[in-house]
Structure formats: C-alpha cells, structure tokens
C-alpha cells in the first residue's frame, strides 16, 4: 500500500481491508454510523496494527463495514480518527479477516510518500 503521507497510509490500509472483506450488494445511499477511535502505541508500526485490529473488532461487534476514514490527528504513537460504516447486511462478505499481524510488517517512507506492507490472518 502506498500513500503520500502517514495519514494516507493509515486510511488506505484501512480501506483495503474492507475492500477485501466485503462487496456492497445494495444500491443507493445507505444509513451510516459514525464512530470515534483513539489509539496509542509505542511507535507508528504498532499503531498501524492496533488501528487495523480495532477496526476489525468494531466491524464485528457493531456489524458494520467501514468505508470512510478521517484521520484527525496522528503522530508516532497516537491516532485520533472518525470512521463511517454501513450495515454489514447490505454487503456480501467474501473473507473473514481475523487480524492484522506483525508478520513481515513494513512501514516506511518511500520517495515522496509512504509504503506499507501488512500481513493479515484470514
């Protein structure tokens, strides 16, 4: 996954999970639910994993597929975001993603932007 900045990487990897996980079945606008998320970690690599796993966990308990991610504040060890999701019943779920793992985790600056590689347990 690539992005222009750290916020972008966190947004793009989050978007990718749910894109892999599910495909929308119902056409038109769907009701949306908004959730605020705060995460803390020792460094940005851990922050990425904690962020992704928090999204997966919330998706499971709230029955939502998240489609919009606004990262309001991010640093090496903290993140504040607002995410927007739709009812999972409006989607066809293709793959269960158990978790994002530290296995082979890569998060670094690359050229003018950022690069991330995350392995998921599916």
């Amino acid at each position, binding site marked *: 996954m690539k992005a222009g900045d750290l916020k972008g990487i966190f947004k793009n990897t989050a978007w990718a999970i749910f894109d892999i996980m599910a495909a929308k079945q119902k056409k038109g606008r769907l009701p949306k639910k908004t959730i605020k998320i705060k995460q803390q970690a*020792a460094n940005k690599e*851990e922050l990425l994993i*904690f962020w992704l796993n928090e999204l997966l*966990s919330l998706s499971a308990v709230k029955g939502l597929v998240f489609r919009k991610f606004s990262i309001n504040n991010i640093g090496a060890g903290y993140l504040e975001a607002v995410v927007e999701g739709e009812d999972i019943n409006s989607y066809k*779920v*293709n793959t269960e993603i*158990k978790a994002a793992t*530290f*296995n082979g985790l890569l998060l670094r600056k690359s050229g003018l932007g950022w690069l991330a590689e995350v392995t998921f347990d599916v």
Partner: protein
Amino acid sequence: MSDLTQLKLEKIDEYRFRIPRSYKPGMRVPGIIYTDEKLLKDIRQDKALEQVANVAFLPGIVSASLAMPDIHWGYGFCIGGVAATDIEEGGVISPGGVGYDINCGVRLLKTELQYEQIKDKIKDLVYALFSDVPSGVGSKGDIRVSAKEERQILLKGAQWAVEKGFGIQEDLECTEEYGAIEGADPKVVSDRAYERGKAQSGTLGSGNHFIEIQVIDQLYDSRLCDTFGLELGQITVMIHSGSRGLGYQICDEYVRSMVRCLEKYKINVPDRQLACAPVNSPEGEEYLAAMKCAANYAWANRQCLMHLTRKVFERVLSEPWEKLGMYLVYDVAHNIAKIEKHIVEGKEKKLCVHRKGATRAIPPNHPELPERYKKTGQPVIIPGDMGRNSYLLVGTEKSAETFFSTCHGAGRLKSRTAAIRSIDANALLKDLESKGIIVKASGRDTLVEEAPQVYKDVNDVVDVVHNAGISKRVCRMRPIGVIKG
C-alpha cells in the same frame, strides 16, 4: 532473512531434520522438523523454516523448536509448530504460539451406519446441515446467551453445553481436558471479547472450518479398530471449528500487551508476533487464564455443533441419534498452550507446551487418558482436505520426544489468494462430484480457497508421523459430504 532454499539442514534420520543453533545467533536450541525428503521440497518454498528458527529464541525453550510435517508459514510460530518452555527457568508463554483461533480443533463422531445404507441420503444430509448449522463469516447462531451465561461457558466449556441439553455426559469423557481446561478466569476477558463471542455459540465459522460426512475406507490396526468400534464402510462425521471472534479478540489484546513485555522483561525475539512474557509473570498468568476461557468457549462450540449435527441426522434419517450410534470418538485441540509435566534430560519438568497447528498425542496408560482409552492411547483426529482423506491415529510412547505432539492436518501449499487466482469453482465442483463428494459452501471463494490442491497430501503427512513413531495409524476415511463456512 537468509535464503531458506539454501539452508543446510542436518539430516538426523529419514524423518527428522535439524536446523543447527549456529544458523542464527540468538537461537537457544536447534530446530527439528519432522518431514521426509518428499515433503521437504515444498517446506522450503515459504518462510516456515525461518519461523522454526525464530521460535528457538524464546526464553526457557527446552530441547528444540519443533515442527510437524504439515508445517507451513504462520504468524509468529509456523503452523505445525511445537515449543515447550521451562516455567521454573523463566520460560515464556506467547499468544503467537497459540494463534488467533484459540482451540481451533476437531472432533470425530462414529455412527452405526454403513455407506450403502445412506448413499442416497447424502445430498439431503449435506443440504440439511448447511441449512441448520450456522456457518459463514460472522455467522450468528440461535444459541444466544446473556453475559452471565457466557461467563459460565468460559468456565465450564463443553460441560455448559451438556447441562443445557446439547449432548450427554459421555461426550465429555471423549473430549480433551474433558471439555474444559481448569484455570480459566472470565474476569480477564474484556467486554469487547464478550461482545464478539455472545452471538457465536454453536456456529461453524468460515475458512477451513467444516462439517464432513465420511466413510472409512482403510483399516490399519484391526485390534484398535475393534476397540474403537470402527469398520470398513462405516460412516463417520468430522467437525472442525474453534473459538470464533472471542478467541481472535483475546489473542489480539494479549499480543498488544505482550509487545510491551519484550522491553519490560528484556526479551529479544526476531519477530514481534512472538511477543511473550514469562509464564510466572502477571501478564503471562493473565494471558493463560484468558486463553483457557477461549479454549473452553471453543469446546462448548464444538459440543453445540455436534448436537446440531445429531439433530440433522435424526431429522433426515428419521431415527434418534442414539439409535444411529452417533457417539463421539474424541475431540482434540490443535491451537493451544498447556502446562504439562514432561521428562527432560531425565528430570520431570513443568513446561508450557505450545501447539500451534499440532495435536496432543498421549500414549497408553497416560494419567490424563479417560478409562476407555487407557489401553489404546489417545485418539488423534487428523483432517485432510475435502477431496482426499482424513485419519484417526493414536498417541505413542515415542511421541515423548515431541512433548506428546503430532501433526494436525494436511498443511497448506497455496495461499488463499493464489487459490482464487488459479482454480475454477465450477471445475472443482464437477471434479468432486465425479468422486462422489457433495459440497455446500457459503461462497465460491470459500470453495476454491479450500480446494484439495491447495493442501499437501495428508497421506504423505501421516506417513511421516507414523513412520517417525510419534503417532500410529488406526484407520483412514474419505469424504462423501462436506459443508464449508
């Protein structure tokens, strides 16, 4: 990472290969892989051997970092990994050595049915199972419980299900740990984990979870088969599932907390997914207590799934399940960490044995065996893939060298992504149908991801464990009806 295709393994004998300690500075013990030359070619293709070497870094690890012949790349530990740490010597426990699907495991039921009796009913049975057993991603069941009740599940495991009428007391005797491991503490399970678990009791899940109707097609030990009440042509049923979202949440939370422990306890591991803490630390004790909760949840889950399966057979075949002889042979965990006593260099030691994609295989007369299996040794259930075979084995004395552990299945050869890219679902279904196998899956991707060709041949895997002497073949089954989540 070193070039693993070039890694020089030391051949110990026909079925054991060693990664020397010198391979990577920091390895406390060697790695030992149970395999043969044939399977080794595939094993070298992914990072599994590197993971065996990484596990050897764990503080307190004894003897060797072990791998079974179904070894393949995992998260932290490889799948098929076994590692025991000495608790009194600062030995650690690692959530990565158990996995996200805590107590993913499998159970085998026998029946009094012969293939010829029900061959025209297989389709009905498969469709009824698919209809009546909740399966698929995020599946929710009809067994809904309150938070108070859920705590009881985490403490009592399969016993909870039996008390609710989802089975009989005899089922517990035929379950590892009698269906509940002592020392579970529901207080160390988070509210979020409870949320994820409360609607999923009695659900199959997805991925490689399944219910399979089988027929015994080969007997290897007639004395053992007689003792187990198994014969050629007999119908059996295998159920594979785990702790669902509750287990994933517990693993995630404790990997997070244990990543902090690496600095706190000055532990050096090459992979953060091997994050760990001494078993005798607050974090280690808390994880163990939470892991046991998830393990008990999984045993309750498989007990409920068996109950649902029995009810389906009753409905389709119009006979009570008892009359159909649908009794449990055994249930085994294959993702778990347990505190066990083992002899190490002539001394009895209390060890934390991690089995990640590996199965306990205790020999005859072991104190943890139920009376009915004292003479045979523990039944070991080995599922293969939906196109080939599965096995029933028993534990042996020689498996003391692997801390009484053996393989757990066939072992994946191709990733799910590679499977979806290369296998056609229609062609697969036609092929399975031509072999007399009826399959119902929740999606085409699930079907393709679980195609026989993405797995090693379980016959090769079982050959290794049998010939290495760490477990012994009893009989072989082939699938005739499968439901996948």
